[in-house]
């Protein structure tokens, strides 16, 4: 199958959507499919062979944060040329409601088209105003994929219609086969995420730490992620501080070894998560997980069967659960087994098969993707040259 994938965000900046597209493309290429990814990128030399640059991304404020997107007349021309050269059997756009390459691709192509919705943003005012403009483009999408039941619900509320749920994939064996690191074993609690981003919830965990240490003085907290360490521990007593180790940014290999080593992985996030890939990675490494009960997390953890949940931002509940779990090796072992079993549904083998099933359902018997003729004929009718 010839598959064209459109990534709306800057390829040079690491992010969840970019990683998902990279892994999907590599998985599909591994199965013998022909894949081309169109993404904004500044430097063409460092790109993997399957990525085509759509030009440089521009940093613009959008929906409350700064996004690096690519749009405008030059990008539209590149999208059309890529569609024309690619001659794809199927077009897979990601995040088609962001003002970027994805909506441009949906706008200028016709044929079997699949879209994946990653975020579960509340409906923005811009989207309501732009709805008459977006709708004709979105109507061409023949199959919608949401990454979680939570994302599907917001999608249905905002745009109507329906979507199939296919979670983000993880290479389970990469984490499961990593070797524990002796430096990080022995009564350790792990946390991975940006230190100064309050939504990642480190403050909640730090607030719970004194109570945990009072019950179990041998516990160490390992924090991996970038951010200001001094600022994070500013309000803590020196003896509590001494039990915290900051590891800074870690590589993928180190992350896998860390998750394999810890006795308990804590995800105290306070919101803004539509999926929770880090929990899936922790479960792949068979780490017992204790997470806040966000909708997305509860779903990833199978409603609490594959990992324990505590009320969001409740440090007392977090401390109580952590002390109970660390003092109960049998329960930890049960959680490890449950996590390893549950995480199989997030393995690329399962997820990739499902995504291919969507492609085949949509592309079966249909002609391939080509440029939207209606647009071209209009241009020609007005006597404009083809760009």
């Amino acid at each position: 199958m010839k598959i064209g994938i459109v990534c709306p965000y800057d390829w040079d900046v690491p992010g969840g959507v970019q990683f998902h597209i990279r892994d999907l493309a590599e998985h599909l290429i591994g199965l013998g499919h022909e894949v081309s990814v169109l993404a904004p990128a500044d430097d063409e030399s460092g790109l993997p062979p399957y990525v085509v640059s759509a030009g440089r991304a521009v940093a613009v404020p959008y929906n409350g944060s700064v996004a690096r997107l690519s749009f405008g007349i030059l990008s539209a021309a590149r999208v059309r040329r890529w569609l024309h050269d690619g001659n794809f059997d199927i077009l897979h756009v990601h995040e088609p409601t962001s003002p970027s390459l994805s909506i441009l691709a949906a706008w200028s192509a016709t044929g079997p088209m699949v879209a994946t919705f990653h975020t579960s943003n509340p409906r923005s005012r811009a989207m309501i105003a732009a709805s008459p403009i977006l709708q004709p483009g979105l109507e061409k999408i023949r199959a919608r994929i949401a990454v979680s039941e939570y994302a599907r619900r917001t999608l249905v509320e905002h745009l109507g219609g329906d979507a199939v749920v296919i979670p983000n994939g993880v290479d389970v064996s990469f984490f499961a086969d990593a070797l524990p690191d002796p430096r990080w074993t022995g009564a350790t609690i792990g946390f991975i995420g940006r230190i100064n981003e309050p939504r990642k919830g480190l403050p909640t965990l730090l607030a719970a730490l004194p109570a945990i240490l009072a019950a179990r003085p041998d516990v160490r907290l390992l924090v991996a992620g970038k951010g200001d360490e001094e600022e994070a521990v500013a309000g803590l007593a020196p003896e509590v501080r001494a039990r915290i180790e900051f590891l800074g940014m870690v590589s993928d290999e180190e992350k896998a070894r860390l998750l394999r080593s810890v006795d308990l992985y804590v995800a105290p996030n306070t919101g803004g998560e539509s999926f929770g890939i880090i929990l899936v990675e922790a479960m792949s490494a068979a780490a017992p997980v204790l997470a806040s009960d966000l909708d997305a997390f509860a779903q990833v953890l199978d409603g609490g069967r594959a990992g324990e949940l505590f009320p969001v931002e409740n440090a007392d509940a977090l401390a109580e659960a952590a002390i109970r779990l660390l003092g109960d090796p049998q329960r930890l072992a049960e959680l490890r087994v449950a996590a390893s079993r549950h995480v199989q549904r997030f393995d690329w083998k399962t997820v990739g098969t499902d995504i291919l099933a969507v492609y085949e359902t949509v592309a079966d018997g249909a002609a391939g993707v080509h440029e939207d003729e209606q647009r071209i004929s209009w241009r020609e009718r007005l006597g404009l040259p083809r760009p």
Partner: protein
Amino acid sequence: MPPVTTWIWAAVAVVLFAVYLSWTAGRLDRLHARIDAARAGLDAQLLRRASVAQELATSTLLDPAASILLYQASHAARQADEEQREVAESELSQALRAVFAAPEQVEELRAAPGGEEALSDLTSAVRRVSMARRFHNDAVRAARAVRLHRLVRYFRLAGKAPFPLAFEMDDEPPAALNPQGSPA
């Protein structure tokens, strides 16, 4: 008599309105084509599921009671006429759920020679039916939203195309068949 410019503006407005109508008609046409494609896809997946179920029923991999039940349901689903289709397909879903209610049944089938293949065929066929149905009903909803528009009704832009109907059926997969599959 109004000045010439008024006539020009009126003509421009009429032309723009006509262009908008023609564009909307094109959009609607594309939506109808999408429904047709989605419906053809759904038909193919439903047939595929019925064939897989029938194959399984005649394979002697299952016990005689389950075989008869499954054969009857898949035969009815394949032969059903348009009006009875949704009911017959739902009954096939129910029959599959009844046969594969117990995880032990799935394990026993997996252990039998050729059972592993039959199971993966069935799992994928069941999953694809629910995918194809969602895609079809999503297309129907999009077309309906445009067709209910006032201008589309007044100017009869939908032409003679019948009002699109969703395909309603029970496509809940057997619980034991999804030990590591994704949530529906």
